[in-house]
């Protein structure tokens, strides 16, 4: 199971009050995790990735294991600790505006 930490506004939108746990079919990548996330919480469609291009929204970042994964290919494998559930994938709203 993969743990995902959402920013507060998206937790509110998805009506969850803690980390999200996802079962991902096949290889765990940014794309497959986000697909699973949006399937479980359809309200998040369009909030993390563009509806049409499926690209990461400009002010969204992906962190895990103290690394910034934002610029990696969405099809690159996620770190092993994320895959085995010992470390979460953080979806973060970029620092901006203050």
């Amino acid at each position, binding site marked *: 199971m993969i743990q995902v930490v959402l*920013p*507060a*506004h*998206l937790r509110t*939108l998805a009506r969850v009050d803690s980390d999200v746990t996802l079962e991902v079919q096949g290889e765990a990548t940014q794309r497959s995790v986000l697909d699973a996330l949006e399937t479980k919480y359809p*309200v998040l*469609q*369009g*909030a*993390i990735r563009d*509806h*049409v291009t499926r690209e990461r*929204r400009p*002010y*969204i970042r992906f962190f895990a294991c103290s690394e910034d994964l934002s610029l990696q290919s969405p099809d690159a494998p996620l770190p092993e600790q994320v895959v085995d559930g010992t470390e979460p994938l953080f979806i973060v*709203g*970029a620092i*901006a505006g203050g």
Partner: protein
Amino acid sequence: MSKVRVLVGTRKGGFLLASDGKREKWDVSGPHFGGWEIYHIKGSPADPNRLYASQCSGWFGQQVQRSDDGGGTWTPVGNKFVYDGIPGTHQWYDGTAHPWEFKRVWHFEPSLTDPDTVYAGVEDAALFRSSDGGLNWQELAGLRGHGSGPRWQPGAGGMCLHTVILDPTDSQRIFIAISAAGAFRTDDGGQTWQPINKGLYSQYIPDPTAEVGHCVHHVAMHPARPGVLFMQKHWDVLRSDNAGESWQEVSGNLPTDFGFVIDVHAHEPETIYVVPIKSDSEHFPPDAKLRVYRSKTGGNEWEPLTKGLPQSNCYVNVLRDAMAVDSLDECGVYFGTTGGQVYVSADAGDSWMPIVRDLPAVLSVEVQTLA
């Protein structure tokens, strides 16, 4: 006894303000969707409990929220706004071609007869419609297909379609306005559109009388006279007596003819309201006095309304969708400011009182008159 419900969108959430017909004591509910920009909330004329709210964020994009119980509870509905076909380009601020990109919903206009049908005016400018209560959205692409789209350009607030007016006597006729393209009208339910900007004069575009390119800030109509339109443009207040075929300036004795809001008295179709704002660079009230101006002659002759409004050291703005009127016997007039005040006049503008003073910057104000 009749009641009113004021729907307020702000930079940091939505608020619902409720009162009885006296409009003296108010209950405040909110923030709804705290921390998000709520550009607009509007109720269905066919079912006052049906509300639509535009919730957006620079980080997380657009959400559409729907309430079926007058704002007690909300449900997120469809947020997929995809331009029809290849979006094409419009002018950027520097005149270069810029691709059309969806940013947010500025305005919802629910159908006059069907609670599940609602129009959305969006940035970058386009008109969408949902006929299933906001679950799915389709662009009325004939507007951008008019052919003038490459000459549209963003105003300071973005290239937004901010005004949608449905003709109560003709279900096929819709008026819209875009900053900065101008006003348009369809007579066939949105399939084809024509610009309705004859008579507008805008010094800030190469041809001041061009077919498109005008920075229209807001348009208002009285439902009993759908052929008469009133416009607050970037500069100039204008009226049209022929459904937008031509416009005449009616700025008259206003202290400045710049401003954003314009609205019409609920029972007197020739009584109109504006809030003059000093421009081009300041965007606050002239002489630091917050004054609503009322004309009972459909323009040209204006009187300042000041009782209850700050008359010194006032530097707020009143944005384009932040004025509304109720339809009680004595017409109520409402407006919100970028300083977070929402004012009400229960006597058609003669006197004012703040309903709330310290909300986040107000983006929009709508009012429902409830039985």
